[in-house]
């Protein structure tokens, strides 16, 4: 079993801190690295893959450092976010070249096996620059997996894929995880992580905000207070009526007009509001959930 270990890892560019004091261990199975854009996920993956030197701390794969150590690629595969592939080669030529560079004993059969795994055998003899985005992505996975690495790192692997391709990629990652590989993939989309991995590492602003079982983190996310901006024909009277509602945790009158309402349960509050307004004879003019961005969900996790 090969583990990826990060110990007190930080990475900064000048005075911008991209990754801030992260310690984590990745074991076999699929782990999702979740976080909004700019959270430092790619920087983390690049450090794990030996393409960035940590400013502080250590990154090891199976006990060996990844920086300036090409030998680590015997047990590690990387699918980077940039889609570039040698478009003048066919998928078979490309994956075969990768197998040869790994100095595998039987590169041709390794290439065929990897292409079968990603279901690319039919189009394997066409030039890669004639492929769709999803096909290129699968070809890159085949190339990264041709030497059957114990650890596979994927940076935003579902970007640009259609739903069917996504489903296929998810199944593939599942099966690789079940076969005892250590798989880490990054994503900024909650639902993707939900469908693929049981374990997640959540990054916000370069820090590890949450780590562990997905369901526990999801519960934290759904139970967080929701904030709504409300405007009505009589804000003060509506505030009085709302404070009696069980799902409402707090109401604030805004100086410029309108209310800010904090609710503990999204569904109960949005059902109760029109009922209360109707009962009081108040006309609702605006209802806006004001913290629904992914950033706010992640920020909440950071505070939790």
């Amino acid at each position: 079993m090969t583990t990826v270990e990060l110990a007190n890892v930080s990475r900064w560019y000048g005075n911008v801190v991209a990754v801030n004091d992260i310690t984590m261990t990745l074991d076999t199975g699929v782990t999702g690295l979740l976080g909004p854009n700019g959270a430092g996920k790619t920087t983390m993956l690049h450090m794990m893959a030996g393409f960035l030197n940590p400013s502080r701390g250590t990154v090891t794969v199976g006990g060996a450092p990844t920086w300036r150590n090409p030998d680590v690629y015997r047990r590690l595969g990387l699918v980077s976010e940039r889609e570039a592939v040698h478009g003048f080669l066919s998928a078979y030529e490309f994956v075969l070249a990768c197998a040869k560079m790994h100095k595998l004993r039987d590169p041709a059969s390794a290439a065929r096996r990897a292409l079968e795994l990603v279901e690319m055998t039919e189009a394997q003899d066409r030039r890669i620059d004639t492929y769709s985005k999803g096909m290129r992505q699968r070809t890159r996975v085949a190339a990264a997996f041709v030497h059957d690495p114990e650890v596979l790192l994927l940076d935003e692997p579902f970007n640009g894929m259609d739903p069917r391709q996504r489903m296929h990629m998810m199944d593939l990652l599942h099966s690789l995880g079940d076969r005892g590989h250590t798989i880490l993939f990054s994503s900024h989309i909650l639902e993707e992580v939900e469908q693929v991995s049981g374990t997640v590492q959540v990054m916000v602003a370069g820090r590890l905000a949450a780590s562990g079982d997905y369901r526990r983190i999801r519960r934290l996310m759904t139970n967080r207070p929701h904030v709504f901006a409300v405007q009505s024909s009589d804000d003060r009277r509506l505030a009085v009526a709302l404070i009696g509602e069980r799902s409402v945790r707090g109401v604030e009158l805004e100086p410029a007009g309108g209310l800010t309402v904090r609710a503990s349960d999204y569904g109960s509050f949005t059902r109760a509001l029109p009922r209360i307004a109707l009962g009081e004879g108040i006309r609702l003019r605006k209802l806006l959930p004001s913290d629904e961005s992914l950033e706010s969900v992640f920020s909440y996790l950071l505070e939790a």
Partner: protein
Amino acid sequence: MSTVAYITTRGLFGRRRVLLLLPLPALLIALALICRAYDVNPADWGTPVLVGLGLAVVLPVIALIVGTGVLGSEVDDGTLVHILTKPLPRRDIVLAKLGVAVGVTAVTTAVPLFVAGVLADSVRLGLALAIGAAVGACAYSALFLLLSLLTRRPVLLGLVYILVWEGLLGRFVSGTRVLSIEQYVITIVDRIAPTDLLNGRVSLPVAITMSAVFAIGGTVAAVDRLRSFSMAGETS
């Protein structure tokens, strides 16, 4: 041929920039043929065509196109990552790419220079120019390959070296010639086939030593640079 060299060669000849390799050698041969056909005295056209065009433009510009193409293009489009994520010593990757660059540059420049040299003077001058082109190809390729790992604008910096350092300063400031690959090549050619057409301005030991310094130093520095190749993250 190693897999890295195979991919590099296919990449080089699969890109449109390979077409840039054709016009300059063709122009060199065409000019020499025209001068010869009209019986122009070689003393009048030999120096401008062989040195002014051949050694000062064709050789360095082709070395620049090829030398930055073998690695710089893969750095630019991100395909280099597929080669770097293999358990290959970085030395092997650099040597394979340098081998392709030197081979393509040497063949593309030595042939037209040989033809032009024969037309201008003798087979001996043609052979001397071909050897000079091979030596120049080694030094220029190592320099430009290193540049493509040091900067995101290797072609621009390479042009500055060719046009400003060698072309402009090399003419007026004699000290700059010690760091001019063009001057090493002229000296080597002049020693192998002494004629009035070429005038070496650095000594032969300097030419040989400095060519080796450029070729070996550039290669060693490129290997070290590739070992620490970094990919910037989204937050950089």
